[in-house]
């Protein structure tokens, strides 16, 4: 089964995390990935990635979603070459990467056109709708 992909340009403003996660959840549901708890976790991951891009990345980011054999990777490319790094949480933050690590499988960073791309592999989605099976 070939991969399903989605790409969206996301201009950065304070409404970007919400718009991005709503778009990604709709896309993933359309791919037959309909477990609500799993979609909720995917929404948090997208929200964290885009929020960090708004805060530290700058400009307009490129969001990609890819599903193959039931594995979904969400990635956000921004214009800053600085790599995110987990830090000790305090009152002004430090919980974004921790949340991604808690809810997803793994994350990696790649160079990308002068900036970087943060890629998060989501956990396997439970109970893939077999009738659709499209992302399976």
């Amino acid at each position, binding site marked *: 089964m070939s991969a399903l992909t989605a790409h969206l340009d996301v201009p950065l403003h304070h409404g970007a995390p919400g718009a991005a996660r709503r778009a990604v959840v709709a896309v993933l549901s359309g791919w037959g990935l309909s477990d609500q708890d799993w979609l909720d*976790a995917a929404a948090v991951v997208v929200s964290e990635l885009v929020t960090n891009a708004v805060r530290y990345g700058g400009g307009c980011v490129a969001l990609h979603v890819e599903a193959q054999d039931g594995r979904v990777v969400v990635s956000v490319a921004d214009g800053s070459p600085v790599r995110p790094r987990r830090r000790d949480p305090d009152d002004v933050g430090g919980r974004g990467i921790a949340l991604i690590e808690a809810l997803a499988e793994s994350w990696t960073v790649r160079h990308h056109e002068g900036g970087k791309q943060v890629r998060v592999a989501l956990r396997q989605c439970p109970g893939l709708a077999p009738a659709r099976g499209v992302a399976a």
Partner: protein
Amino acid sequence: MRIVRDGVDGLVRMAFHGELDLATVDQVAAQVSAELAAPGLLRLVLDLAGLTFCDSTGIDALINAQIAARDRGVIFQVVRPRGIVRRTLVATGVLELLTTATG
């Protein structure tokens, strides 16, 4: 996000409805400081039962509300986080910290 406020005798309850994220955290910070600035407040409760989404930006706002309340000597408590909101509080290890009344 919509915040429904309910206040009586030094107790204020703010019920959150909708999604708490980068677009809405300022609203929480503003309304919490307004409450804390008013005289006579003894206890501030944030009711999350109607909140359907909260990411780390939202959690930071809740932690800041707790710190601000403590600094004013106001009892503070987050109650009724549900679903993914509860899961993010658990995953970041702050569920107990926020849902235990402080002051």
